[in-house]
């Protein structure tokens, strides 16, 4: 088994405002249908980097806006409950949002509108991907570096790279764990829902997960110390 290094990256972005706006659920449905994947991603994830320590009451911009400005709380709850962890493909997420909105619109006779000052304005990220300069070849190195990294590195490898920048549809950590034979660790990470936690909590969870896996003599994978060049 060769030792493929894990290169720690992170991303920073500016929000770019698009011309798409909605002041009602039917307009939101229309715009979600045609907006770019980058815009969808932005509105589903921006709270992670904006407030790394907070889990907001409504965990994405769509649900928050529907709650705050349309007071359609049943719809807001459904949008808060999107199955993001099972739908790595943003097209599936788009379909789920559209289904929620369309079903609700079919059930009601008249819909609420908010003012243009309170419109939902679609944005998308303009990314810059930064190299942190740190590379891990072993799980020991990996956890030492991950401990020093800020949470945005976790956001990059957990959300940004797999959803926006890759065809793999698997988070970078699980991908690397599997490449190194740590299948149980990858399975445990894949079964975890990072959308229920803040970015800082996700960072801590990942560290705890790897620590517990390293401490477990039954863990699969192989001993890092057998790799040539291992630093003790």
């Amino acid at each position, binding site marked *: 088994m060769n030792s493929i*290094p894990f*290169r720690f990256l992170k991303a920073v972005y500016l929000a770019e*405002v698009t011309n798409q706006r909605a002041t009602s659920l039917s307009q939101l449905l229309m715009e979600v249908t045609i907006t770019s994947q980058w815009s969808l991603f932005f509105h589903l994830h921006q709270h992670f980097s*904006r407030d790394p320590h907070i889990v907001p009451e409504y965990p994405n911009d769509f649900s928050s806006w529907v709650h705050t400005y349309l007071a359609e709380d049943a719809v807001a709850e459904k949008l808060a409950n999107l199955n993001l962890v099972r739908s790595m493909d943003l097209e599936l997420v788009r379909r789920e949002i559209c289904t929620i909105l369309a079903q609700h619109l079919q059930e009601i006779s008249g819909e609420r509108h908010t003012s243009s000052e309170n419109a939902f304005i679609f944005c998308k990220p303009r990314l810059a991907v930064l190299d942190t300069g740190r590379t891990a070849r072993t799980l020991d190195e990996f956890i030492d570096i991950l401990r020093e990294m800020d949470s945005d590195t976790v956001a990059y490898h957990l959300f940004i790279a797999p959803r926006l920048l890759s065809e793999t549809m698997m988070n970078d950590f699980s991908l690397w764990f599997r490449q190194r034979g740590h299948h149980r660790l990858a399975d445990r990470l894949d079964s975890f829902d990072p959308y229920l936690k803040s970015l800082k909590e996700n960072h801590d969870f990942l560290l705890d997960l790897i620590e517990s896996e390293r401490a477990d003599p039954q863990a699969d994978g192989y001993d890092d110390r057998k790799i040539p060049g291992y630093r003790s």
Partner: protein
Amino acid sequence: MIEKYRDIAPDKILSEINALAGALRGHTLQHISSTRIGGGVAEILNRMIPWTTSLGIPTTWDVIDGRQDFFEVTKSIHNALQGSDVEISCCNKEIYLAHLAHNAGKIEPDADVVMVHDPQPAFLIEYFPHRRKSMVWRCHIDLSRPMPAIWRFLRPAINKYAMAVFHIPHFAQKDLTIPKVLISPSIDPLSEKNRELTQEEITRIVEGFGIDRGRPIIVQVSRFDRFKDPMGVIAAFRQVRRHFDCQLVLAGGGATDDPEGPMVQAEVEEAAAGDPDIFVLFQPTDLEVNALQRAADIILQKSTREGFGLTVTEGMWKGKPVIGGAVGGIPAQIIHGETGYLVNSPEGAAYRIRYLLSHPHAGSVMGARGREHVRYNFLITRHVRDYLLLMLHVMQNESERPVFIGGVTGKTGRPGGGDIAAKAGEKS
């Protein structure tokens, strides 16, 4: 410069500044504005330029000049863009354009990235067609409801810039065809208005106004302007006073360009007359504002219309729960129920004040969260980082693809080496 902010700003933002500056070192930045002294833009640039210069990005600042009639016209344009019902005559447009033609002969936008601030110098771009790809229009005003005639006059010039930058999405006019990005304003934690103060300093200043630190203090700092709803604040306070022994401080000045200011102040003073627990303070210094905000139990910004609302930022930075009107940039700052409350009426404000006064621990928790929220999102360090990011995006001159920095390429971005750049282009 970075060292001064260590232990104040998040490490992650300081390291991002370092990484971005590394990619920009040796490139040049130029600002063009209408004044070097007074006003928000001058204040921001006076703080920003030492930052970018210290990061190895030579930064210059040019200021357009003009006679008084020019600045009278630009003031009218400024007000009309913010929604005031002001007409700009053809004669005034000629004065404006003639002065900019004169300035175009004196200012050369020759840096790698040129930021032109606000409407006053905006038409300069007409004189430099070969520099358009490096010029950015930075809008610091509320452009959500411009007078249509003046916007029709300005828009063709703005559309010639490489990009336009706004504070919040609602200020970005839909009919601009160029990329529109967001950069929030910021506060400087080392400035006189925001630096740490000792309890002795706070007590000395606050008690100097006759305010009792032994009883709860509610503070709103803002201009005496109807949109800041000072009368609504007094109404809310009077409802709270039926239940709690507390004090209200309304502190602020009047803008020189607001003829209503003295009238509103007089109304507020009349409404507060005879109530020893309402303190109306006119034009406090930055240090006094700092002390008042730090002495407060609750900060209010009960605006009915607002630009960004940096007094909300200042209050949260001081670890206070903030109750703000759900307008303008305030909802972009207050996370309802987490860092404070958004309200829509004096009754809403009164209820939230009563709740916080009867749950001081909840207020402390909100205040601590608010301070963290500001630390990550609204300090000058995040602002510097965003200016560097803007420079990179303008220099890359490609709207859709990510910028890769520090040896990252499409082939090396992921373990296993997927081609990340190729997919980025497809999905955006």
